[in-house]
């Protein structure tokens, strides 16, 4: 495979892109915009996949794109492109201003005032990642598959083992004199074992994701977890419909915690399209529940020094001892709600800022996962969720589920073909025990927890 681009060449891009941002902003103002902002991304991605011990796919590329947001007479126009030729960009600026003239006037439109707060280097870039040899990546994938197959002879097929890595540089510049650029990197290992027993298949999955190569779990660790999670589902049955407690493992728990940022999205709040509307300072969850959104976590998987509009991100509490403390805002929705932005604007170059969380997590509790499982006489240990049955407006929750059945405090048989259902208002209040096993695994993380009662529909 080709060598990664030399660092020197990439620094040349840094200066070029900084100048480009400034030039486009300047030109947009000259052409009649009141305010203008450029969000530019330049990235590298690489992907290696092996299957049954052979290389299956190799993919490698760099890409770029920019989004231009302009305001004219409080009207918003937006364009994006991956074509950086000069004549095209000239046209694009013109088009953006024309588009803004078509939109409605809105007093809340406009760029944020630059923040006086310092922008902190959060150590999100690992130069080592771009230097990883292709041969090492192929070997890591092959080792993952070998570890899976050695784990249990019923694991005899695979959807493959993969190593992905990349980095991106973001430049944000606007007509209020703001400019900042920052880099981040990632590497990602995952494997997809298939187990077979009595002619029936079960697929599984595990992964490790990190901004730093040194912090990535070993291929063997990832593969062993994937193998264990897959094999234990063989011979799954569908139990009878009951109401019973449900223990969410860290993966499924994170999926539930991930509903919170969507439910406190300032845009959904003013549209009254969330079950958490009009609930600030009210009790919305069990007093044991503390949920944070931290954009400033050093080396964090979803950290960012600034948000999509260039405001320094913050570490904030969303739910404190069960009480809702804040909604998440960007500049527009904050103005509309007569408050200030929580610096939660998120975007890629091809969209205007939307609202999202950074590192969102449920704080760890005091119980070991075994203590939580041990507290249940008859219930479900949930390890996999399917479908997207959550209605943010009402909080109604209903999803496909599989996992292990708990009897007398012990994990017994695998179960599948279930749905679990409740309402988010009840589920949050019924979080009874929280585990001490919080590990940052992705943009949303959670320790194990138990919900005291849910409807589990089965046979």
């Amino acid at each position, binding site marked *: 495979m080709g060598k990664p681009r030399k660092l020197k060449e990439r620094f040349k891009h840094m200066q070029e892109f900084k100048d480009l941002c400034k030039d486009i902003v300047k030109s947009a103002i000259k052409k009649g915009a009141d305010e203008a902002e450029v969000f530019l991304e330049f990235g590298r991605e690489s992907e290696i996949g092996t299957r049954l011990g052979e290389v299956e796919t190799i993919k490698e590329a760099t890409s770029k794109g920019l989004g231009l947001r302009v305001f004219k007479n409080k009207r918003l126009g937006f364009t994006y492109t991956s074509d950086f030729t000069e004549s095209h960009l000239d046209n694009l600026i013109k088009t953006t201003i024309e588009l803004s003239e078509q*939109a*409605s006037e809105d007093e809340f439109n406009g760029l944020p005032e630059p923040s006086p707060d310092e922008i902190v280097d959060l150590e999100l870039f690992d130069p080592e990642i771009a230097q990883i040899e292709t041969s090492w990546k192929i070997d890591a994938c092959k080792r993952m598959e070998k570890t899976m197959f050695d784990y249990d002879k019923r694991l005899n097929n695979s959807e493959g083992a993969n190593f992905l890595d990349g980095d991106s540089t973001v430049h944000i510049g606007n007509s209020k004199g703001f400019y900042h650029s920052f880099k981040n990197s990632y590497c990602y290992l995952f494997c997809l074992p298939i187990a077979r027993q009595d002619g029936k298949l079960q697929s599984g999955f595990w992964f490790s994701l990190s901004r730093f190569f040194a912090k990535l779990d070993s291929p063997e660790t990832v593969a062993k977890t994937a193998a264990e999670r897959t094999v234990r589902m063989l011979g799954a049955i569908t139990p009878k419909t009951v109401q019973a407690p449900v223990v969410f493992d860290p993966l499924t728990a994170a999926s539930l915690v991930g509903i919170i940022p969507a439910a406190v999205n300032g845009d959904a709040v003013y549209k009254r399209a969330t079950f958490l509307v009009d609930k600030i300072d009210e009790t919305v969850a069990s007093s044991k529940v503390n949920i944070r959104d931290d954009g400033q976590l050093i080396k964090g998987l979803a950290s960012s020094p600034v948000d999509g509009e260039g405001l320094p991100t913050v570490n904030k509490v969303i739910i404190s001892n069960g009480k809702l403390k804040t909604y998440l805002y960007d500049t527009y929705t904050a103005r509309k709600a007569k408050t200030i932005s929580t610096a939660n604007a998120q975007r890629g170059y091809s969209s205007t800022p939307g609202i999202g969380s950074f590192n969102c997590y449920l704080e760890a509790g005091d119980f070991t996962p075994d203590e939580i499982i041990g507290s249940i006489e008859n219930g479900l240990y949930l390890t996999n969720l399917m479908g997207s049955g959550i209605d943010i*407006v009402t909080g109604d929750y209903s999803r496909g589920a599989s996992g292990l059945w708990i009897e007398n405090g012990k994990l017994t048989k695998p179960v599948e073909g279930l749905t679990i*259902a409740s309402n988010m208002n009840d589920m949050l209040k019924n979080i009874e025990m929280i585990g001490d096993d919080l590990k940052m695994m992705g943009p949303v993380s959670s320790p194990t927890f138990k919900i005291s009662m849910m409807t589990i529909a089965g046979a």
Partner: protein
Amino acid sequence: MKNPKQAVIRYASAVNDKIEVLKQTINADIVNRLFSVALSRNGDFAELYLEYAINNAIALEENKLRQAQSGVIMGVGIRVLSGEKTGYAYSDSLEFEHLKRAAEIASHIAQNNQPGKTININAKPSTAISISPIDLYPADVAVKEKSNLLWRANETGYAADKHIKQVNAYFADSIKFCRVANSNGVFVDNQESLCRLKVSVVVEKDNLRQSGYYGNGGRVDFSFFDNNTPEDVAGEAVRLAVIKLEAIDAPAGPQEVVLGNGWAGVLLHEAIGHGLEADFNRKKTSLYSGRIGRKVASELCTVIDDGTIPNQRGSLNIDDEGTKTGRNVLIENGILKGYLYDYLNARLMNTKTTGSGRRESFHNYPMPRMTNTFMMAGKSEPEEIIKSVKKGLYAKSFGSGQVDISNGQFVFEVVEGYLIEDGKITAPVKGANLIGSGPQVLERVVMVGNDLKFDSGLATCGKNGQAVPVGVGTPTCKISEITVGGTSLGKAS
């Protein structure tokens, strides 16, 4: 049967000039030079995919046209195959040096250092035949006219019910040009147009809030909205939201379920469609592996994937490997007939591609994917089907779904559902999910209606992180038993 409306593509004004430039830039000579680089390590297949797309969108919120936007996607993807292996690289710059580097990267998948073969593709590319001819491309329509649709929807939405608190309307359209060339001699140009109108509303009454959304579109002429009006779309969104205000908790547990015609075809997409994609079957990771010719569904079931239906969202003139799309019979009278193949999987399984190789954009290599997947109409009257149910659920419309290919387990949410009691549709229900396994549910199809209908044109399918537009369709049909997930216990029979 040949569709009389088929015609040679006429390029949209929005992209015409740029396409002329691109055709010159990525000409046969350039393609041949790139292929000689791509195959320099003796790979056995090389392919170039050039894409140029314009995506437009406007959004109306709170009685304001919030924004108008337009974006350009442009780039080239180069793929090299060597046996089962795929090498892929792309470039969003069309400078020869950058394209050459992409070809070099992709070439490395083959490790042989013997000089590769020389490729000479035809100097002149062909142009795909349009299966959805269009006079007025949505991409060529002025923003003002498109926003008119949104204002009309907005007015209807607020006027429809005094409890409506929010109306949001959205219109998006795209026009996409691509040129596909490969070392087997394929050299073809194509253009696809797509649009959709979507309305969502929030209704609030006695401290209860509910939402509803509806939309329509497809690969249609802009005049489509003359007959499929924004007023209809907004009215349907309001109706769905208001019904939910009265809805009771869904009864949990196994029961008889009647699927409504149209959108409910997403059940076929999840329950069987994905499991018949050739990649999973070549790797024997699908529960349908090795089962062609076997009975996998009730004999009432004939399931088709058809990429040639004019104006449907999932249709394509050619797939993203340059192959004409087709009408592929997946299940005939309950017997499994075939899989959906792209070029790579067809070659490795000694058969022909079914024109099912699709990709989200030039950033990705293609995979076998569905187009428009539907069940053929049966003989039963829809009323007769409802009448036959003593106690069960009428699942009229669905939201999104998901499937696990290995064990066939699928799940999807019911967005409009009602109880059926003594052969009559009664109370609306909320929060219901259906869960089951593909073969089991298809075996239990006991009545199929004569009222096949397609969805209104909003469906998007995700696989390995790539999203592509698709269509689904089904007649009304009855499933003798399927597990319903809900919160209410003890009501199911």
